[in-house]
Structure formats: C-alpha cells, structure tokens
C-alpha cells in the first residue's frame, strides 16, 4: 500500500446517525445515546476496522427543532468525558474531542486535552470550533454570541496559547530519582507569562507534556477566517465540499495557505465528511435510501401548538402554526432553494425537464443530487418527493453498493480532492456494519486503506511527526517561574 496514495478514515459518531429519521429505521438504534456500552461498541467496531480516529462533535445549546433535523444533538454526553471513558475501552484508535474556544478557558482546555492525551497514551485530538449555535450565548451569561471576526480573534489567540501551555513542561522534566530525592528538574518547567488581547495566562500548566507533544488539532470551516486558522494550526481539516471540483479547490487553497505560513502542506490532511448509504448492491442501497426518507417528518405532517419566543412549548392548546415549524421541510422552503415556485406541485409528481431548466444553478444541483442518490431521472420517474428529501437531508451522501462507494472515494483521492474522509452513518448500527463489512474490504483490496495499525499514536496513524517544544530552556519568551528557578 502506498502511504501517500491511501486514505485516512475518521468516523464521526452520531448516536442516531446523520439521517433525520435514521432512529426510526427498522432495527436502528435510537435510545442508547447515554449508554456507555453502546458508545464503546461503536468505537470498538471502528477501531477493529483500523480507522484513524473516532470523532465526537459538540454543541453548547439545544433546541426543539433538532427533534426533526438531528436528534443526535438534542442531548448527548459531553465529549471529554466520553473520550476519557473510551480511552479505556479502546487501545489504538485516535479520539477527537470537540471543544469550543468562545465559551471556555485556554487553561482548562489545555489541561483537558493534555490529560486525555496521557490517558490515551497519545491518541487525543482537539477539534477547534468557535460556535455554530448562537443560542449558546444565552447559556453562558453573554449578551451576544459575537460575530465571526470576534470569535476567530479569540480562537486564534486561544489555540496558540494552548499549544504553548502544552509545552510548559519539557520532555524529561520528571527525574523521579528515589535515591537522591530529586522529583523534577525545575529548570525544565516554564512559565508562559502570556499577555494578549483576549488572554493573560501565567502558566505553567500543571500537567506533564502530552505524549504526542501536541495533541492533533482539527478544524472545519469554509470562511476566510476559518481557512486562515486551519492553515496555521490544523493537522486535519474536516472539509465540507460535496463535489470533486469543490474539494480540489478547497484542498489546494488550504495547502497554499499552509505553505505561505511556512508549513509543509503535505502535513495538512483534508478529510471531507461523507455519509455512504451502503447496500449489498446499488439497488439495495437505493431501497434503504427510499425507505429511510419515507420516515422523515415533513412540516405538513406536524400539528403545531403554541410556542414561546424561545421555541419551547407554552400551555396553549395545540393548533397548527406553520411559521413556527422547522421551517424548511415544506414546498415553500424547497421553492426558495430552487429559485422557482413549486408550492402547487404534488409531492408524487414527476419533475419535468422544463422545471429543471428553470431552476437556479443551486436548484439544478439539488435536482442532480436527488437523481444521483435515487437513480431516477427527471421527466421519467424523479419526483418532487425525491427532491424534497435531498433538500431535507443535505450533506455529502453517496448511495451505492461497495464498488460504487469505493469508486467514489477513490475518485476523490486520485483527483486530489481529499486525503481521506470522515465517515458518518445514516443510522446505527446497520449502516456502520455495512460500511465495515462491504466497503472497507473493497478499499483494502484496492490498496487504498490499511489492514492494521502500524503505529500507536494518532500522529502515527496520520503520518505526522511529534513536534518539538516551542519552549525549551533559554528560548522561551517568558521568565522562568520564580520557584522553578530555585528548585
């Protein structure tokens, strides 16, 4: 297997899958998000398939609309504790923990991530996010969420500061000589005395340097600021592109930016998210896809009661109020997406060629997506229901048998659109099992994916070297800790 031409695979864990109705699929799991044995079972299945990492997402607010869009994020255990738990239930796979820089303190995050790296013996990773849900501000005593620039200003300083805190203990700071009684070499423990726009942190961290030196840093995003942060700090970029040309352009942009800040662009791995909807054959996969979609609750299916301004229910009697629904699961929202009015269309009606031509470019792309996923074609058998479902379940989905899914992944890799994927499942556990049983062997037979782990740490899996410390004796900007100087 050519390491440069093979895939890195992460697995993003969603307790109920990425499909909004995945939890309703016959046999799918929907009630075990808080069961540690369930989470460990998924992580171990992914580890047995020698994935690079197991990815835990996070948000800092919840809301009633998630019940129809993404039940996995309504309520779930917090990621650091899950990862600490999984550290013991797994042995080789990397563990990616999402932590938000807007609503946490660098000293706390540096400790949590460093500690996780010790507990996992070098398998920890931090996915840096600045906050996708503005409602978080109301959970954190903040008058406002802050605009992207304010959040990224803070994040830029935050990430750099955390890296320096990881380095405040040099490798070899512990002596632990029982004969002489020398426990540490105080000269290898450094204060930071960081004074910046958002943070003032003296240090040192109260934790030994992480086994990986720096836990692997992950970042996602397409905005200018997020690309800049990723190019400077990220080892892995969680990409959002859903087509090969977009993926190529995104990866090329990030690598150019990384080179511009003096990094080796080959050491920045771009891994787009991908939900493979896998069946034994293409027809089987499409049958699963259709069956799943029929379980989606559209706005027309919901009778809405009263709701307060926060979206949570009030004591009013139930009456239908469409304006308070999830809002994008109806023909009105679809019309906006297509750039033409289809509110009078019947969901079972066939999409005509004339309509395809009248749609906006993004609308045409949506119709192509629906056609690709279902195998049906406009003017013949592609219906408005198919388009509606592609609209409701967006994201990067490929529907097919093992060969089609592997072809798709290989095409992205060969085109330079990615270094691998972050795989997600439409529902659990069936779709994960299918991917592992059918697609992973196909990828291996093509020499595109490892059969077993070669190394021990996540950096090993990703082919990334252990970074030297930014703070070695005599080189750091801050003064030696006063007590350290005399120790």
């Amino acid at each position, binding site marked *: 297997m050519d390491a440069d031409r093979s895939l890195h695979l992460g697995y993003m864990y969603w307790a109920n899958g990425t499909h909004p*109705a995945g*939890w309703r699929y016959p046999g799918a799991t929907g009630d075990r998000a*808080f069961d*540690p044995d369930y989470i460990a079972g998924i992580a171990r299945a992914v580890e047995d398939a020698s994935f690079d990492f197991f990815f835990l997402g996070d*948000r*800092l607010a*919840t809301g*009633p609309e998630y019940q129809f869009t993404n*039940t996995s994020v*309504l*309520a*779930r*255990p*917090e990621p*650091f*504790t*899950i990862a*600490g*738990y999984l550290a*013991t*239930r797994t042995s080789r796979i990397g563990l990616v923990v999402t932590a938000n820089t807007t609503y*946490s*303190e660098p*000293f*706390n995050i540096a400790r*949590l991530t460093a*500690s*996780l790296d010790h*507990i996992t013996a070098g398998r920890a990773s931090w996915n840096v996010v600045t906050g996708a849900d503005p409602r978080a501000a*109301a*959970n*954190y005593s903040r008058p406002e969420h802050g605009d992207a620039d304010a959040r990224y200003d803070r994040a830029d300083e935050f990430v750099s500061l955390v890296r320096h805190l990881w380095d405040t203990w040099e490798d070899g700071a512990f002596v*632990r000589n029982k004969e002489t*009684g020398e*426990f*540490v070499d105080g000269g290898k*423990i450094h204060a930071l005395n960081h004074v910046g726009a*958002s*943070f003032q*942190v003296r240090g*040192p961290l*109260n*934790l030994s340097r992480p086994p990986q030196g720096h836990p692997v840093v992950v970042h996602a995003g397409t905005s200018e600021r997020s690309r800049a942060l990723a190019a400077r700090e990220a080892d892995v970029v969680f990409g959002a592109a859903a087509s090969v040309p977009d993926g190529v352009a995104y990866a090329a942009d990030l690598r150019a930016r990384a080179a511009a800040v003096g990094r080796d662009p080959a050491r920045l791995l771009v891994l787009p998210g991908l939900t493979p909807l896998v069946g034994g054959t293409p027809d089987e996969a499409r049958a699963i896809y259709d069956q799943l979609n*029929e379980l989606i*609750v*559209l706005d027309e*299916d*919901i*009778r809405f*009661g*009263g709701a307060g301004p*926060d979206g*949570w*229910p*009030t*004591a009013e009697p*139930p009456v239908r109020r469409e304006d308070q629904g999830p809002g994008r699961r109806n023909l009105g929202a679809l019309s906006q997406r297509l750039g033409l009015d289809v509110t009078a269309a019947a969901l079972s009606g066939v999409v005509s060629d004339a309509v395809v031509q009248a749609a906006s470019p993004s609308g045409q792309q949506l119709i192509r997506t629906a056609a690709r996923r279902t195998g049906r074609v406009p003017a013949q058998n592609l219906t408005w229901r198919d388009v509606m479902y592609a609209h409701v379940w967006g994201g990067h989905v490929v529907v097919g048998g093992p060969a089609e899914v592997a072809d798709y992944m290989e095409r992205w890799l060969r085109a330079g659109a990615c270094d691998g994927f972050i795989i997600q499942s439409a529902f659990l556990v069936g779709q994960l099992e299918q991917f592992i049983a059918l697609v992973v062997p196909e990828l291996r037979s093509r020499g595109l994916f490892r059969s077993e782990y070669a190394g021990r740490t996540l950096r090993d899996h990703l082919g990334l070297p252990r970074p030297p410390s930014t703070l070695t004796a005599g080189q750091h900007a801050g003064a030696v*800790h006063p*007590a*350290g100087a005399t120790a």
Partner: protein
Amino acid sequence: MTGNGSTRREMHLGLMFWATGTHAAGWRYPGSRADGAYDIGFIQDVTRLVERAKFDFLFLGDRLVTDPALAKTNPAQMSRLEPFTAGAAIAAATSKIGIVVTANPTYYDPYNLARLLASLDHLSRGRASWNLVTGADALAAANFSRAEHWDTEKRYDWADEFVDVVRALWDSWEDGALIRDRRRGLFVDEARIHPVNHHGRYFDVTGPLNVARPPQGQVVLLHAGTSDRSRELGAREADVIFAGSHEITSGREYYADIKQRAAAYGRSADDIQILPGLSVIVAETTREAVAIRDRLDSLLPEVERKPDVRAGALGQATRRRDEWGITGNPVEVADYMQEWFETGAADGFNIFPPFVPGAVEAVTELVVPELQRRGLYRREYSGGTFRDHLGLARPRNRFESAATGSQAAPSRLAPAAAANS
C-alpha cells in the same frame, strides 16, 4: 443500611487519591510508585483495590496552579491528570465505586460544569460526584486572565449562585423526556424539557442543558472548609462534607455545627455525611507500623523533617496519633476510627494513603476487615449508585413537581400520521 439485616449505622469510606501518596516522601518509599500520576492503568488498579474493599468513593483532588517547589512538599499536587478525563477513564474500569471529581466554579461556567458532571454520571451509571472548591490559591487568577484573586465573600457569592444554576440545569430534562416514539416520529416530549431562565447577579442562563437528566437526578455534592461561608454552603448543598479536623474535640464541634446548620435548612442529620480526612499507616503490629512511619519521615527532604525525626527518634514502639494521622496496628486504627464515629465526630473517613499502593493495600487488608468484624462497615454494596452507598434517595425533579405536572403539560407537537406517505 447494612446487608446483614441490621439497621446499625455504618461508616462511609473514601480514598483520597494522590498518585505519589499523601506523604511528601511517599514516592520514595520502597515499592511505591513514583510515576503513577500519568499511568491511568495504575490509577484504575488502585480504584479497583478499594472497590473490592467496598469503599464509597475514590476522591480526585485538583488545583489550578502549580509550582516546582511543590516537588519537595507535595509532589502529588504539583502535576496530575485533569480529574474529569481521569474520572471517566476510572468509570470504564469500575462498576460500583463513587467517583469524586474536584472542580472549581470560580474558573468555570455553570453550563460547562453541569454538562461535565451530568455526562460523568451517565457514563458511570450514577456514580459521579462533584467536590466543589472555590480555590484559595491566589495564583490561579493569573492562569485565567483575571486581574485579581477574588476574596472569600465574592468567591462564595459566585459559588452559591453557580450551584443553583447547575442544579436547575440538571433538572431541565425530566425523566422520560426522551420518548423516542418511532411510530409517531417524536423523539422527545418537548413539554418535559424546560428552559431554566436563570437571571441572577452573576449568571444569565437560559438552558435547557443538552444532556439528559443524570441517573442520580442530582449528582452527589461534596464540600470542605471551615470558614463561615463554606460551612453554610456545605450545610445547605453538600451531601458529604470532607472535614479537616485533626483531633476529636474540634472534630465533634465541627460535626455538631454542620449538622445544626443543615437542620436550619430543613435537612436531616442523615442527609449530610461528615468525613474527616485521615492519614493511616497500619501494619500487623504497632512496631512495624511505626517503623514504616519513621522510614517515610527519614526520606523527607532535610528541611521538611520534624524535629523528632531529625533527632533520630526512630523505632518508637507505641501507637502514634498526631496532627498527621494515625499509625498503629489494625485494632488501634479501628479503635481510633470507632471512637470518632460513635462519639459524634465523624460519619466515616476520607482515607489518606501516605504512599501508593502499599498503604492502600494495608488499609483494605487490615483495617476494613476489622471494621467489618465490628459491624461498622459494609461487606457488600447494597446498590449501584453513589447515592445508594450514601443512603440518599434520588431527588424529585423541580419541574416535575410543579403544579401542572408533566403529564398535564401539553405537548407542542403532534404528528398527524405515523409517516408521510
């Protein structure tokens, strides 16, 4: 309270886990681990050791600063794993024992801490506990972008409100809010999920939490301290008080004071367990125990040695009780604990092992059986959660007990059909 059909009151025991022991030279003692602080397998082994001895809990302390000078006085506190990540890893390797995690509200947001604690409670299936400290260490401010260290009054004002918010967030999901009705396509009953809408002096928190209600309902809360503010917080909120008394008279005074203050908050004496910290060196004979103690003290850095050690008072063959703890044979140690337990000074102890794992093994092999023989300590766990070990009922959810009642509250959403078709 016992598995023997007796209603006799039983002690509660915890283990204060300091990886290199609670004695400053514990790491140098022959056979002890000097490098256990970062070895989670070792920490899990020690936890399983006290779980086999039916301890109520393992206690993970924390501080938010360090200083290399601690290497001489308290190496276990100089650096260590962060307690939530360590606590979760311990949860994965144990099944009964309570897991106490120290967290300082002064440098956390209530939403973050409520999530961490509720999650640990889920992952441990109801064994999580929060040791609330407000942080007396002024240097911590400098690690958290604070211009100054808050005084006790401000820290406790903040902590009092912080606890209120965390407790409300834990209740924001009623039991049974996750209905997962596949037929109707309803995952949650929104009427059983409540914003907390807290608007106070320090915090504005809308909620709800994005974690289901913890298995224990409310995670067990520990607190320690002797100041008036700390006694009040403990008497009002704590399930366990970790006390610092070193001699029995002041121990009784502290015990009576806390129970009296708790009563003023409408709590019963059984609602709050007072557990002094106790260093124990135990061996088959007094002489052996004292020899261990002397050997330990002789390993201290010169400046830290007590005058009698420096003078070479080794081999003294009597039971030793001093500010530092108790050194003796199993009967002497059990006598000491029993006296505190039966004369209104303690409901049990948080055991400090001077070195690890030897001193922990000695307590489990020698002291616990002696206490069990006397009927003072459980032989089996009677339940699966930390609240069970403490004899505490699972509290009612504040939102559920509201006048409307969860059953009567209307659900906002009612899908018309099983699936659109």
